């Protein structure tokens, strides 16, 4: 069922009033241009973002929707039909759910985003929702996380909040081949050599449990998740009559157990740590008859935040290790990402800035510099500037965009 139909169905018996409790909207335009090469303008879009909240007694509705249209795909463009289909227009719910009290807790039902952990734009415990990578891997997570249909129950007991959820199945969305955001990191099997068949069984709910609270002076989180991998792993089915290798996309189920801690160390420092263990994680391995291997995986994060006046400076390390790594796996035995960011607000909160350096060692092969600025001369006007500069080799997450350094200008009217 489409989200809009569900919304209408749910609201009809409740008798929606003309004026909701709260609404706001933002209508914006954005221009993005590459800093190298020919035909540099790659985005000329408009976006409508709308929020609505209403309540009926103790039942409440929260909705946030987004619609985008990119005029760059009108007329001639170098990106092909598939990219035009994927990027010309797009609409989604950032969230759309009903909430109500239940048994001294709260039940929420609908399309939701749930963020576990305290990492800054990195994902260790944050595994509940998939991500839309159509605009590359460098968009802010809040803009690219995909809301999932979900039933979620939370209950507070003293300093602890307990959470149980069951979520529907969606997958990460990769950039369209041939698009501005395409990259070898997101590569799918080449149709010249592989006949990729759609997944046979990738449905099934994800189940999660979490507890967030305090152990003395330390903030602590414990999470457990049973879900399907968001990215496909291709199982080999043997040669096709046309000589290509038939493969089937699979999204195997795994279990994750994780914990996160945060503590104020004094001297303006907060230390954050996360650790997640993934059981039965599958990694593509073309040297295997089945096309993949199963391994356990550990993801870990260590972060430190330093607060100085209006600036929050953060350093993070994220490590990822395949515990049963085997020769031929399309994934390194261990990978590391470092981020250093500074985020501040000035001029009575009118100007907000964020500077980011992210890299994987060796940094010369894979690094990304970003500057994000937003300026609000008045409550109704928001101006934005985003600069992205990449360094590295073609096969790395950031290096793949080395010749696609770009800047984006935006303006939005806030209703």
């Amino acid at each position, binding site marked *: 069922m489409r989200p809009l139909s569900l919304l209408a169905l749910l609201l009809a018996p409740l008798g929606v009033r003309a004026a909701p409790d709260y609404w706001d909207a933002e209508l914006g335009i954005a221009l993005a241009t590459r800093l190298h090469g020919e035909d540099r303008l790659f985005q000329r879009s408009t976006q409508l973002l709308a929020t609505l909240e209403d309540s009926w007694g103790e039942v409440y509705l929260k909705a946030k929707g987004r619609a985008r249209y990119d005029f760059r795909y009108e007329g001639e463009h170098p990106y092909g039909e598939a990219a035009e289909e994927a990027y010309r227009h797009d609409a989604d719910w950032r969230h759309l759910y009903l909430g109500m*009290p239940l048994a001294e807790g709260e039940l929420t039902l609908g399309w939701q*985003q749930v963020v576990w952990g305290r990492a800054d734009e990195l994902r260790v415990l944050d595994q509940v929702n998939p991500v839309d990578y159509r605009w590359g891997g460098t968009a802010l997570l809040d803009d690219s996380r995909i809301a999932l249909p979900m039933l979620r129950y939370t209950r*507070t007991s003293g300093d602890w909040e307990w959470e149980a959820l069951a979520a529907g199945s969606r997958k990460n969305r990769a950039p369209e081949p041939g698009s501005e955001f395409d990259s070898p990191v997101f590569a799918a099997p080449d149709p010249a050599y592989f006949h990729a068949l759609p997944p046979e069984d990738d449905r099934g709910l994800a189940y999660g449990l979490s507890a967030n609270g305090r152990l003395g002076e330390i903030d602590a989180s414990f999470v457990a998740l049973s879900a399907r991998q968001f990215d496909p792993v291709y199982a080999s089915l043997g040669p096709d009559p046309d000589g290509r290798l038939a493969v089937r996309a699979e999204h195997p189920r795994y279990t994750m157990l994780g914990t996160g801690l945060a503590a*104020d160390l004094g001297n303006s420092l907060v230390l954050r740590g996360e650790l997640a263990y993934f059981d039965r994680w599958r990694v593509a391995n073309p040297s295997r008859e089945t096309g993949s291997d199963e391994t356990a995986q550990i993801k870990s994060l260590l972060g430190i935040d330093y607060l100085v006046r209006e600036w929050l400076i953060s350093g993070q390390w994220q490590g990822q290790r395949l515990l049963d790594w085997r020769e031929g796996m399309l994934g390194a035995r261990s990978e590391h990402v470092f981020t250093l960011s500074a985020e501040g607000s000035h001029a*009575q909160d009118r100007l907000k800035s964020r500077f980011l350096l992210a890299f994987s060692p060796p940094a010369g092969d894979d690094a990304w510099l970003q500057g994000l600025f937003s300026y609000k001369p008045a409550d109704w006007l928001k101006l934005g500037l985003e600069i992205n500069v990449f360094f590295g080799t073609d096969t790395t997450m950031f290096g793949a965009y080395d010749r696609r350094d770009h800047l984006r200008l935006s303006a939005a009217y806030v209703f």
Partner: protein
Amino acid sequence: MFTPLKILSATLMLSLSASAVASAETDADAIMRAVRDRDDGRSFLSQVSLILHDKNGNARTREFLYLQKDYPEGDKFTMFFSAPADVRDVAFHIENPKEAQGREDSQWMYLPVSRQTRRISTSDKRGAFMGSEYSYADLDKVRVGDYRQKLVGDEVLLERPCHVIEREPASPETLTKTGYNKLKVWVDKENHLVMRQDFFDVKGVLVKQMRTLSVATIDGIDSIMLSETEHFIDGTRSEMRFNQLKYNIELDDKLFTQAAIRRGLKAGDLPENALSSL
């Protein structure tokens, strides 16, 4: 030449003067303790408008709900921002232990843009509270032992007789935390409300002034209804207007947790009479 008589006189004068200073300090400590310990109810709720005025006279208003509750170990505060859109659902939770415990407070902030609750270090409180001229340090509960203070006079403000007290940081940590080298505080002699406060930077320059502009008695407790802070260097000004104020209402403990700021405020969270008046 110093004769024994002169030495005795000088010693007497010195000791008299020292005891006058000690007395002024003792009085000032007692007054600041009275400010810290004044009756502000066992719980407190208010709808607050934070109005930011830039140097060109333009104003922007931020609305939030402010909740406070007393606990045996100290006070807990929660703030839920509701407007404008760019700060809606931002929330803070602060736990402020009693000064005798000798511990710093603990703070958490929920930012809807990251959908995460983050712990904030409290060692540096010089930052502006939501872009206003109030720093996080200015909004802290008074801590007597963090400063050396002395009574320097009496003045009348808003027709209220006030003590005038000068405070200087007792340690480099306090100076680092607040950024103020000296505070001059006007305290209402009768109800111990702070009626005015001057803030001096490390160079001794008067950088900011906080003024109480309106006081009312609510539920038998004298309360600041309108306060304003002016930044003399930046030429900016912020007002904090307490539009509705209620004391001693039943506030659920679940509103004073980290989980509360992520969850946000829902119908039924506040007593019915509190909701109807807001």
